[in-house]
Protein backbone atom coordinates (compact mmCIF):
# COMPACT_ATOMS: atom_id res chain seq x y z
CA UNK A 1 0.00 0.00 0.00
CA UNK A 2 1.19 3.45 -0.92
CA UNK A 3 2.17 5.49 2.13
CA UNK A 4 0.35 8.81 2.48
CA UNK A 5 2.05 12.14 2.83
CA UNK A 6 1.86 13.60 6.30
CA UNK A 7 1.12 17.32 6.21
CA UNK A 8 0.48 17.80 9.93
CA UNK A 9 4.08 18.55 11.00
CA UNK A 10 4.56 21.13 8.24
CA UNK A 11 1.17 22.73 8.89
CA UNK A 12 1.90 22.83 12.62
CA UNK A 13 5.29 24.42 12.06
CA UNK A 14 3.76 27.09 9.81
CA UNK A 15 1.11 27.86 12.44
CA UNK A 16 3.91 28.33 15.00
CA UNK A 17 5.72 30.74 12.67
CA UNK A 18 2.46 32.64 12.08
CA UNK A 19 1.92 32.79 15.87
CA UNK A 20 5.33 34.45 16.28
CA UNK A 21 5.15 36.86 13.34
CA UNK A 22 1.49 37.88 13.78
CA UNK A 23 2.12 38.98 17.36
CA UNK A 24 4.92 41.40 16.53
CA UNK A 25 3.49 42.62 13.22
CA UNK A 26 -0.17 42.86 14.13
CA UNK A 27 -1.36 41.99 17.64
CA UNK A 28 1.35 44.20 19.19
CA UNK A 29 -0.62 47.26 18.06
CA UNK A 30 -3.56 46.64 20.40
CA UNK A 31 -3.32 46.70 24.17
CA UNK A 32 -5.80 43.80 24.59
CA UNK A 33 -3.64 41.47 22.52
CA UNK A 34 -0.26 42.98 23.41
CA UNK A 35 -0.11 43.15 27.22
CA UNK A 36 -0.95 39.45 27.56
CA UNK A 37 0.13 37.69 24.34
CA UNK A 38 -2.75 35.21 24.38
CA UNK A 39 -3.11 35.11 20.59
CA UNK A 40 0.46 33.84 20.38
CA UNK A 41 -0.13 31.21 23.07
CA UNK A 42 -3.32 30.02 21.37
CA UNK A 43 -1.73 29.71 17.94
CA UNK A 44 1.42 28.08 19.33
CA UNK A 45 -0.72 25.56 21.20
CA UNK A 46 -2.61 24.74 18.04
CA UNK A 47 0.58 24.52 15.97
CA UNK A 48 2.36 22.26 18.46
CA UNK A 49 -0.74 20.04 18.69
CA UNK A 50 -0.70 19.63 14.90
CA UNK A 51 3.00 18.75 14.92
CA UNK A 52 2.40 16.27 17.73
CA UNK A 53 -0.51 14.64 15.89
CA UNK A 54 1.67 14.35 12.78
CA UNK A 55 4.51 12.73 14.71
CA UNK A 56 2.17 10.31 16.44
CA UNK A 57 0.78 8.99 13.20
CA UNK A 58 4.21 8.87 11.54
CA UNK A 59 5.65 6.74 14.36
CA UNK A 60 2.60 4.68 15.33
CA UNK A 61 1.45 3.91 11.81
CA UNK A 62 4.59 4.12 9.69
CA UNK A 63 3.02 1.73 7.18
CA UNK A 64 0.40 4.37 6.35
CA UNK A 65 2.08 7.74 6.98
CA UNK A 66 5.42 9.25 6.07
CA UNK A 67 7.16 11.95 8.04
CA UNK A 68 9.34 10.31 10.67
CA UNK A 69 12.48 12.24 9.72
CA UNK A 70 11.02 15.46 8.34
CA UNK A 71 8.35 15.45 11.06
CA UNK A 72 10.99 15.22 13.77
CA UNK A 73 12.99 18.08 12.27
CA UNK A 74 9.86 20.24 12.02
CA UNK A 75 8.96 19.34 15.61
CA UNK A 76 12.34 20.58 16.85
CA UNK A 77 11.98 23.78 14.80
CA UNK A 78 8.44 24.34 16.09
CA UNK A 79 9.54 23.98 19.69
CA UNK A 80 12.39 26.42 18.96
CA UNK A 81 9.92 28.97 17.57
CA UNK A 82 7.65 28.53 20.60
CA UNK A 83 10.64 28.87 22.94
CA UNK A 84 11.83 32.06 21.20
CA UNK A 85 8.35 33.54 21.48
CA UNK A 86 8.13 32.82 25.19
CA UNK A 87 11.63 34.20 25.73
CA UNK A 88 11.00 37.38 23.71
CA UNK A 89 7.72 38.12 25.50
CA UNK A 90 9.02 37.44 29.03
CA UNK A 91 12.77 37.83 29.56
CA UNK A 92 13.44 39.85 26.38
CA UNK A 93 10.82 42.51 26.87
CA UNK A 94 11.73 42.93 30.55
CA UNK A 95 15.29 43.90 29.76
CA UNK A 96 14.85 47.52 30.84
CA UNK A 97 16.98 49.84 33.02
CA UNK A 98 15.49 50.39 36.47
CA UNK A 99 15.35 54.21 36.19
CA UNK A 100 15.85 54.66 39.94
CA UNK A 101 16.56 58.37 39.44
CA UNK A 102 13.34 59.10 37.54
CA UNK A 103 11.27 61.96 39.02
CA UNK A 104 9.04 60.80 41.86
CA UNK A 105 5.51 61.87 42.76
CA UNK A 106 5.67 65.27 44.48
CA UNK A 107 8.93 66.31 42.83
CA UNK A 108 9.27 69.05 40.22
CA UNK A 109 9.44 67.73 36.67
CA UNK A 110 12.76 68.77 35.07
CA UNK A 111 12.20 71.37 32.37
CA UNK A 112 13.51 70.81 28.84
CA UNK A 113 13.39 72.44 25.44
CA UNK A 114 13.08 70.18 22.40
CA UNK A 115 12.03 70.39 18.76
CA UNK A 116 8.65 69.39 17.43
CA UNK A 117 8.28 67.55 14.07
CA UNK A 118 8.26 70.89 12.23
CA UNK A 119 11.55 71.88 13.84
CA UNK A 120 9.97 74.48 16.14
CA UNK A 121 11.40 74.84 19.62
CA UNK A 122 9.03 73.75 22.39
CA UNK A 123 9.62 74.19 26.12
CA UNK A 124 7.90 71.83 28.56
CA UNK A 125 7.10 74.60 31.06
CA UNK A 126 5.47 76.68 28.32
CA UNK A 127 3.13 73.73 27.69
CA UNK A 128 2.36 73.64 31.44
CA UNK A 129 1.66 77.35 31.35
CA UNK A 130 1.84 80.40 33.61
CA UNK A 131 1.51 78.61 36.98
CA UNK A 132 4.72 76.73 36.26
CA UNK A 133 6.46 79.89 35.15
CA UNK A 134 5.99 79.33 31.44
CA UNK A 135 4.10 81.16 28.74
CA UNK A 136 0.55 80.16 27.90
CA UNK A 137 -2.55 78.96 29.70
CA UNK A 138 -2.15 76.50 32.62
CA UNK A 139 -2.46 72.88 31.55
CA UNK A 140 -1.73 69.39 32.81
CA UNK A 141 0.73 67.35 30.76
CA UNK A 142 1.07 63.62 30.46
CA UNK A 143 4.64 62.99 29.32
CA UNK A 144 4.98 59.79 27.34
CA UNK A 145 8.54 58.60 26.78
CA UNK A 146 8.65 56.02 23.97
CA UNK A 147 11.38 54.04 22.30
CA UNK A 148 10.89 55.52 18.84
CA UNK A 149 11.68 54.17 15.43
CA UNK A 150 15.15 55.64 14.80
Amino acid at each position, binding site marked *: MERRRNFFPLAGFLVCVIAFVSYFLFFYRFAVTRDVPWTGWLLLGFGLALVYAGLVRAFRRPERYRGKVLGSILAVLSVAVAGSFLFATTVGSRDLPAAAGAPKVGQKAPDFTLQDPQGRTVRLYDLLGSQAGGAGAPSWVVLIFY*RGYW
Partner: protein
Amino acid sequence: MRSFQEQLPELTKRGIRPVAVSVDPPATTREHLAKTGWTFTFLSDPDAKAVRQYDLAHDVGGGKVIARPAELLIDPTGTVRWVNLTEDLRVRARPEMVTAEFDRIAGRAP
Protein backbone atom coordinates in the same frame (compact mmCIF):
# COMPACT_ATOMS: atom_id res chain seq x y z
CA MET B 1 0.24 55.70 21.48
CA ARG B 2 -2.73 54.81 19.35
CA SER B 3 -4.84 54.57 22.50
CA PHE B 4 -3.78 58.08 23.58
CA GLN B 5 -4.91 59.37 20.20
CA GLU B 6 -8.22 57.52 20.56
CA GLN B 7 -8.74 58.91 24.07
CA LEU B 8 -7.60 62.41 23.14
CA PRO B 9 -11.10 63.92 23.65
CA GLU B 10 -11.26 62.44 27.19
CA LEU B 11 -7.83 63.90 27.99
CA THR B 12 -8.53 67.28 26.39
CA LYS B 13 -11.83 67.53 28.25
CA ARG B 14 -9.88 67.38 31.52
CA GLY B 15 -7.23 69.83 30.34
CA ILE B 16 -4.52 67.18 30.03
CA ARG B 17 -2.15 67.57 27.12
CA PRO B 18 -0.32 64.42 25.98
CA VAL B 19 3.31 65.05 25.02
CA ALA B 20 5.30 62.17 23.54
CA VAL B 21 9.11 62.23 23.65
CA SER B 22 11.60 59.97 21.86
CA VAL B 23 15.11 60.16 20.42
CA ASP B 24 13.71 60.12 16.87
CA PRO B 25 14.81 63.17 14.87
CA PRO B 26 11.97 65.52 13.78
CA ALA B 27 11.99 64.09 10.22
CA THR B 28 11.38 60.53 11.46
CA THR B 29 8.54 61.67 13.70
CA ARG B 30 7.08 63.75 10.85
CA GLU B 31 7.00 60.67 8.58
CA HIS B 32 5.51 58.55 11.32
CA LEU B 33 2.78 61.08 12.11
CA ALA B 34 1.97 61.43 8.40
CA LYS B 35 1.44 57.64 8.32
CA THR B 36 -0.57 57.31 11.53
CA GLY B 37 -2.47 60.61 11.50
CA TRP B 38 -1.80 61.18 15.21
CA THR B 39 -2.34 64.81 16.17
CA PHE B 40 -1.03 65.41 19.69
CA THR B 41 2.36 66.89 20.59
CA PHE B 42 5.49 64.92 19.70
CA LEU B 43 8.96 66.14 20.62
CA SER B 44 12.37 65.00 19.38
CA ASP B 45 15.26 64.39 21.73
CA PRO B 46 17.97 63.08 19.35
CA ASP B 47 20.77 63.61 21.90
CA ALA B 48 18.72 61.92 24.68
CA LYS B 49 19.06 65.12 26.71
CA ALA B 50 15.61 65.07 28.31
CA VAL B 51 15.73 61.26 28.45
CA ARG B 52 18.86 61.47 30.63
CA GLN B 53 17.39 64.30 32.75
CA TYR B 54 14.54 61.95 33.63
CA ASP B 55 16.94 59.01 34.14
CA LEU B 56 15.16 56.99 31.45
CA ALA B 57 18.20 56.31 29.23
CA HIS B 58 18.37 52.80 27.81
CA ASP B 59 21.68 51.94 26.14
CA VAL B 60 20.72 49.50 23.38
CA GLY B 61 24.30 48.98 22.20
CA GLY B 62 26.40 50.52 19.47
CA GLY B 63 26.44 53.80 21.37
CA LYS B 64 22.72 54.23 20.79
CA VAL B 65 20.74 55.54 23.74
CA ILE B 66 16.93 55.52 23.58
CA ALA B 67 14.17 56.15 26.10
CA ARG B 68 12.83 53.26 28.16
CA PRO B 69 9.02 53.49 28.14
CA ALA B 70 7.64 55.71 30.93
CA GLU B 71 4.63 57.95 31.53
CA LEU B 72 4.41 60.90 33.95
CA LEU B 73 1.41 63.05 34.81
CA ILE B 74 2.48 66.61 35.59
CA ASP B 75 0.17 69.27 37.06
CA PRO B 76 0.16 72.94 35.95
CA THR B 77 2.69 73.90 38.65
CA GLY B 78 5.23 71.46 37.17
CA THR B 79 4.83 68.91 39.97
CA VAL B 80 4.84 65.21 39.13
CA ARG B 81 1.53 63.68 40.29
CA TRP B 82 1.77 60.15 38.90
CA VAL B 83 4.53 58.02 37.40
CA ASN B 84 4.31 54.76 35.51
CA LEU B 85 7.59 52.89 34.97
CA THR B 86 6.70 49.67 33.23
CA GLU B 87 8.85 46.61 33.89
CA ASP B 88 7.89 45.13 30.54
CA LEU B 89 8.15 47.20 27.39
CA ARG B 90 5.11 45.42 25.95
CA VAL B 91 2.92 46.68 28.79
CA ARG B 92 2.34 50.46 28.70
CA ALA B 93 0.11 52.88 30.54
CA ARG B 94 -3.32 53.22 29.04
CA PRO B 95 -4.92 56.67 28.82
CA GLU B 96 -7.72 55.39 31.06
CA MET B 97 -5.14 55.05 33.86
CA VAL B 98 -4.17 58.70 33.38
CA THR B 99 -7.73 60.02 33.34
CA ALA B 100 -8.65 57.84 36.36
CA GLU B 101 -5.64 59.21 38.27
CA PHE B 102 -6.53 62.76 37.26
CA ASP B 103 -10.12 62.29 38.42
CA ARG B 104 -8.89 60.89 41.73
CA ILE B 105 -6.55 63.85 42.29
CA ALA B 106 -9.13 66.39 41.18
CA GLY B 107 -11.73 64.69 43.43
CA ARG B 108 -14.15 64.15 40.64
CA ALA B 109 -16.45 61.20 40.20
CA PRO B 110 -14.86 58.73 37.79
